[in-house]
């Protein structure tokens, strides 16, 4: 089996994917970030500060919860939920922003910028900025600003400037373009906190490393609670940070199967989806080579998902590689299946999942009944659904 622990290579490649496809001006900044990170990650002081923040500020470890009632109803495998929704700020995103804000501090940068889709990463960035007294500017597609108004207001309350991006399709990908433009213009004093495992090297590596706490905890908790490793891991994949965080510590455990669930939108056949690993092909965007949704001329096409956090035409390069190697299976579920899973978990377990995480739950709903009752599924409940209440209410024709 491939030794997954040694990747990416020195130039940031995961097989043919990843790398650094950026304009010349950013190279020095990426080199500086790489060398700072390589140095700091092995320093006991940095790691201790990170662990301490995760324990006392984020509230880790997050529970691994055996959803007995739901498992029973599904009539097959035992389903365990990794409760990232219980983290401070309500999602896994904060694991990464804590880590990167520490990098910013140790690198002497006093301004941070971030891109955000659903607003969870923006809120997590604004949160750490507030706590550390850093200036914070969050780029958000104008379309997303409109459909995630609660998170926009949260960011503003936290003292961040939210800049609506009106270029291109006015969604997450355009917010990322704009953040890159800001970074290139203010590279001396600014630290760019990328929210997912995409972007130029070393971002896919360092975001993965910060999120891998999810999988390390889940592994230990599963051994403690069930006395053995899980049979199947399930996580939703937009950029793929919560999925890689859960999967990575298990990659060398051959008995553990893994499924990443992309946003099928109106269905893969409709073309209105956000599932590059299911229906895209390799290309170059946002500083890395990876699977993309593009047209015949290489233009990036607009994506569609009920969940703003999965509405992205690319995916982290390590996922592209894991797909090609066959180590992880990638599937997709549609908007309506995700919405049904949201309602199901809310009613059966009293836990309201984020619409992103609901994609992973929808797949569990399909696969668990096909497995025997002694099998164990760990699914990453990557965020809580409070932010999606207005979306749900609109679908239900209810005025909140």
């Amino acid at each position, binding site marked *: 089996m491939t030794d997954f622990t040694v990747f990416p290579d020195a130039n940031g490649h995961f097989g043919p994917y990843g790398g650094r496809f950026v304009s010349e001006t950013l190279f020095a900044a990426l080199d500086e970030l790489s060398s700072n990170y390589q140095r700091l990650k092995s320093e006991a002081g940095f790691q201790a500060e990170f662990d301490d923040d995760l324990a006392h500020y984020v509230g880790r470890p997050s529970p691994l919860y055996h959803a007995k009632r739901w498992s029973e109803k599904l009539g097959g495998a035992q389903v365990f939920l990794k409760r990232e929704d219980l983290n401070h700020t309500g999602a896994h995103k904060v694991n990464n922003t804590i880590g990167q804000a520490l990098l910013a501090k140790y690198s002497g940068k006093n301004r941070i910028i971030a891109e955000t889709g659903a607003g969870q990463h923006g809120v997590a960035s604004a949160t750490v900025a507030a706590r550390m007294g850093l200036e914070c500017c969050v780029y958000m597609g104008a379309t997303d600003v409109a459909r995630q108004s609660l998170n926009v207001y949260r960011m503003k309350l936290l003292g961040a400037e939210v800049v609506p991006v009106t270029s*291109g399709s006015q969604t997450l990908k355009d917010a990322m373009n704009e953040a890159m433009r800001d970074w290139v213009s203010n590279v001396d004093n600014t630290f760019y906190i990328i929210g997912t495992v995409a972007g130029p090297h070393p971002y896919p590596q360092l975001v993965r490393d910060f999120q891998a706490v999810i999988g390390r905890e889940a592994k230990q908790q599963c051994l403690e609670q069930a006395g053995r490793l899980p049979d199947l891991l399930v996580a939703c994949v937009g950029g793929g940070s919560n999925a890689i965080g859960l999967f990575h510590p298990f990659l060398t455990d051959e008995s553990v199967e893994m499924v990443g669930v992309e946003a099928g939108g109106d269905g893969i056949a409709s073309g209105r989806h956000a599932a590059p690993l299911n229906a895209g092909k390799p290309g170059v965007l946002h500083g890395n080579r990876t699977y993309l949704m593009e047209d015949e001329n290489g233009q990036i096409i607009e994506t569609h998902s009920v969940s703003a956090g999965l509405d992205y035409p690319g995916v982290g390069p390590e996922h592209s590689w894991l797909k090609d190697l066959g180590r992880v299976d990638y599937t997709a579920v549609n908007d309506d299946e995700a919405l049904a899973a949201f309602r199901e978990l809310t009613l059966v377990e009293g836990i309201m999942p984020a619409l992103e995480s609901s994609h992973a739950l929808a797949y569990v709903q399909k696969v668990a009944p096909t497995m025997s009752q002694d099998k164990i599924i760990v699914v990453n409940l990557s965020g809580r659904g409070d932010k999606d209440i207005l979306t749900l209410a609109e679908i239900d024709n209810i005025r909140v």
Partner: protein
Amino acid sequence: MSRIKNHLSELTTAGRKALIAYIVAGDPNPAVTVPFMHTLVEKGVDLIELGVPFSDPMAEGPTIQRAHERALQHKISLRDTLAMLREFRQSNSTTPVIIMGYANPIEVIGYDAFCQEAVAAGLDGVLVVDLPPEESADFDALLEQYELDRICLLSPTTTAERAKAIAERASGFLYYVSLKGVTGAATINIEEVQAKIDAIKAFTDIPLCVGFGIKDGDSARRLARVADGVVVGSAIVDLLSQGDTGLMKATSLVEELRAGLD
């Protein structure tokens, strides 16, 4: 000898500076591009840089972003851009033309197929903003094989060591990005640019042209003192999109730039 090298060395011999004009293929509409390329040549432009429309032009400021969006409304692709060049070449076989764009539209065609089509269209050089030397060994080998010049960017943040490695790979000319920022950004510090350029000139003979932030005859003249030529993009693109009179205004700007350099 390549058309670029040939033309730039003639300029050097004559003691003149190169004026390089950037426009986006198909902006503000496809009918404008080829006739305006001929106008640019008539008004004294030495080399034309054709921007290839892309959905995610990460290195561009607002002016050129909008130009990409306008061209994409007409669905202008990399192949359409090469078709425009082919049409231009029917009556101009001397002016060097390069394309400036992003990696993905080239990747979709495939590096080898792209090079074949580019040569057939009469292209002279390629500048791919997001394809640095670290990622372009295969592409560079093909460009050399097809005798297409590889135009490389150098920036204020490029280290001396890296600049040397890039200069070894580059051909045609080196494109020095005058400031930390996107295209069309504000002010250039001439002294800073001069110091950087002098340092680069110490280890390479490839002509060095400066771009980003040149807006008029005056800034062109001041920068040309320290470089072999200047690249003007946003200022031309901005005027070109201004309705019926845009073409005329853009043409006068080019005349002003030429006068500023001479």
